[in-house]
């Protein structure tokens, strides 16, 4: 049989709660939904394999936003995240996260995931943020996925691996009715009817092109092609603040974290080519990234993570984390380059752009119950709009989503969808397999992402954006009329390109709408270089209305935790000032 041969097929199943995405938020959402009602059917659908999918495929080196009694309070954390995001935060969801996350840490601990403790048996929390102390190392962080998987098996969650969801189904009255998916090995289609659906599909990590030119050498797990954003958009859900891009400081070419969160608490720091510090704080914020970008271009670049001043034993300890967890090929990469942290600093660069609320503030709009604007549809993790989520946010908000979605499923019956919607989607999905001749998905993807780099990467210039939108429209036409997929694996990539193209369009549209600069480098518009609180102290919501991409303003909800005037711009003071 030819490799990944296409099989024609369409079947239908149903469940109470459907969770799409088995990375971090998804397994927790599925688990909590099932524990809430063990009699209900919970399906966890995953494009790859739940055992090793998502951002924490190889584990995580620590919790970056742990609000632990004795070290931090929910009020402090909410304040810090509000300031770090230039005030554009619905605090209710952040505050709820901050209140709930300690319980989740204890629960993860009970799953066998260990967190660093000091000699008194207390959690050994480290300071990385500008104001508070929230970073908790995980000495056996490589076991996270295995520990989660054990829980899923024990709770008898129904796991469907190698199914890529492509579109959501809704009833005529606008309620969620299920999802359509495709088997990534055979191209057989599966319709899943569900009373509630939770999207946990990760970041849009294949939006920009990494500077190495290797399409899959992205910061995010390259499987995270933004499918969740595209599905939410086509289902009519609102997406918040997509102009607040994710851009991160990473090991040059390797494109993984260097990582100051791990090494910083031991005394490592970010330095320029003179070996001098230039930023006050290594916590990833747009304001910090702007200083990082300025330094790279100033003649004082490249920028380095400096460790060589530390004791060799300390460096060995840092290495044992960096080369074992999260991105374990870091060691192999440095070895290949002949870089020893004891004698040489780590060259850094900025990443390609993406969407990811894990480190920024964009995503499918959700309230403090993880509800989107579509009844019965939830979102959690890197693709949902709760800012600076990180892994613990994915777990905590995934938990919130799972419980609320099960409550929704218990009080609603299946919504009816139009069979014609399935037929239309089947035609769209299979179209690239029906053409004899055309352009393969890898070329369309490369071109799209190259255009994203050329035209959409900050600094954002209106004239460049207008041209970028035209070029992207041409690439879209090629994608819709000429793209071919000769086997099921190519079809997977062809479907992913369509998500990437939708995300590129949304990034451009959202960026042009907000006529000011905010969030440091993330939304730096040269034509509107100042922050304009009078007109733009608001969220922006992007959605599909009457078939067209539309943006509107949405007021920031009244704060739960007030911010004093002299605290508001603390994150704007990132650059170290020359002292006399």
């Amino acid at each position: 049989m030819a490799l990944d041969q296409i099989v024609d097929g369409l079947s239908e199943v149903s469940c109470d709660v459907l969770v799409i995405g088995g990375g971090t938020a998804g397994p927790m959402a599925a688990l909590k939904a099932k524990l809430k009602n063990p009699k209900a059917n919970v399906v966890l659908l995953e494009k790859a394999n739940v055992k090793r999918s998502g951002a924490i495929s190889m584990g995580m080196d620590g919790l970056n936003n742990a609000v632990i009694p004795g070290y931090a309070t929910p009020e402090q954390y909410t304040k810090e995240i509000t300031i770090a995001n230039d005030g554009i935060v619905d605090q209710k969801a952040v505050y709820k996260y901050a209140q709930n996350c300690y319980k989740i840490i204890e629960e993860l601990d009970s799953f066998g995931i260990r967190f660093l403790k000091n000699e008194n048996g207390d959690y050994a929390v480290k300071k990385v943020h500008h104001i508070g102390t929230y970073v908790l190392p995980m000495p056996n962080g490589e076991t996270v996925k295995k520990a989660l998987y054990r829980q899923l098996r024990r709770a008898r969650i129904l796991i469907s691996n190698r199914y890529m969801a492509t579109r959501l189904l809704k009833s005529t009255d606008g309620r969620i009715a299920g999802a359509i998916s495709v088997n990534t090995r055979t191209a057989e289609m599966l319709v899943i009817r569900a009373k509630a659906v939770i999207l946990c599909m990760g970041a849009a990590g294949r939006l920009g092109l990494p500077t190495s030119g290797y399409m899959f050498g992205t910061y995010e797990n390259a499987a995270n092609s933004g499918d969740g954003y595209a599905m939410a958009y086509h289902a009519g859900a609102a997406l918040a603040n997509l102009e607040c891009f994710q851009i991160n400081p990473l090991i040059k070419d390797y494109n993984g974290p260097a990582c100051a969160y791990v090494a910083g608490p031991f005394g490592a720091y970010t330095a320029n080519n003179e070996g001098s510090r230039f930023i006050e704080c290594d916590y990833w914020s747009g304001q910090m990234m702007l200083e990082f970008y300025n330094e790279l271009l100033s003649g004082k670049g490249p920028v380095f993570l400096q460790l060589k001043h530390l004791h060799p034993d300390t460096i060995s300890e840092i290495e044992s984390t960096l080369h074992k967890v999260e991105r374990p090929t870091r060691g192999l990469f440095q070895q290949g380059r002949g870089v020893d942290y004891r004698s040489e600093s780590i060259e850094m660069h900025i990443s390609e752009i993406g969407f990811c609320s894990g480190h920024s503030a964009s995503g499918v709009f959700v309230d403090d119950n993880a509800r989107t604007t579509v009844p019965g549809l939830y979102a959690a993790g890197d693709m949902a709009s709760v800012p600076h989520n990180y892994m613990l946010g994915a777990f905590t908000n995934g938990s919130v989503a799972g419980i609320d979605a099960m409550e929704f499923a218990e009080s609603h019956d299946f919504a009816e969808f139009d069979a014609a919607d399935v037929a239309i989607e089947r035609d769209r999905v299979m179209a690239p397999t029906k053409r004899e001749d055309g352009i393969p998905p890898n070329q369309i993807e490369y071109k799209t992402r190259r255009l994203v780099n050329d035209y959409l990467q900050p600094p954002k210039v209106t004239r460049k954006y207008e041209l970028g939108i035209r070029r992207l429209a041409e690439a879209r036409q090629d994608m819709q009329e000429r793209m071919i997929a000769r086997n099921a694996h190519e079809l997977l990539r062809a479907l992913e390109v369509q998500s990437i193209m939708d995300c590129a369009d949304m990034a451009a549209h959202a960026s042009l709408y907000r006529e000011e600069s905010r969030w440091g480098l993330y939304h730096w518009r040269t034509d509107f270089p100042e922050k304009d609180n009078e007109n733009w102290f608001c969220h922006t919501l992007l959605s599909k209305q009457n078939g067209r991409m539309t943006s509107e303003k949405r007021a920031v909800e009244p704060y739960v935790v007030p911010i004093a005037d002299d605290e508001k711009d603390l994150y704007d003071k990132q650059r170290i000032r020359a002292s006399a």
Partner: protein
Amino acid sequence: MPLASYQTSVPVVVDDAKCIADKGCTVCVDVCPLDVLRISDMTNKAYMAYDECWYCMPCEADCPTGAVTVNIPYLLR
């Protein structure tokens, strides 16, 4: 337009002598997030069928016989 095949040096290498895919093992193929590994029809051993690698390591870490090696993709090495 006609299509050409494109040469590329792939980052994941499988030691056929150690690989037990011919005895039914599919661990590396199963765990890959990008789904780029396959079992060869000709050799019945695992190999990298698509050069779309995140150099993330589950294939190497989970292989029961230590047959899989993940290298850094050439373009970013």
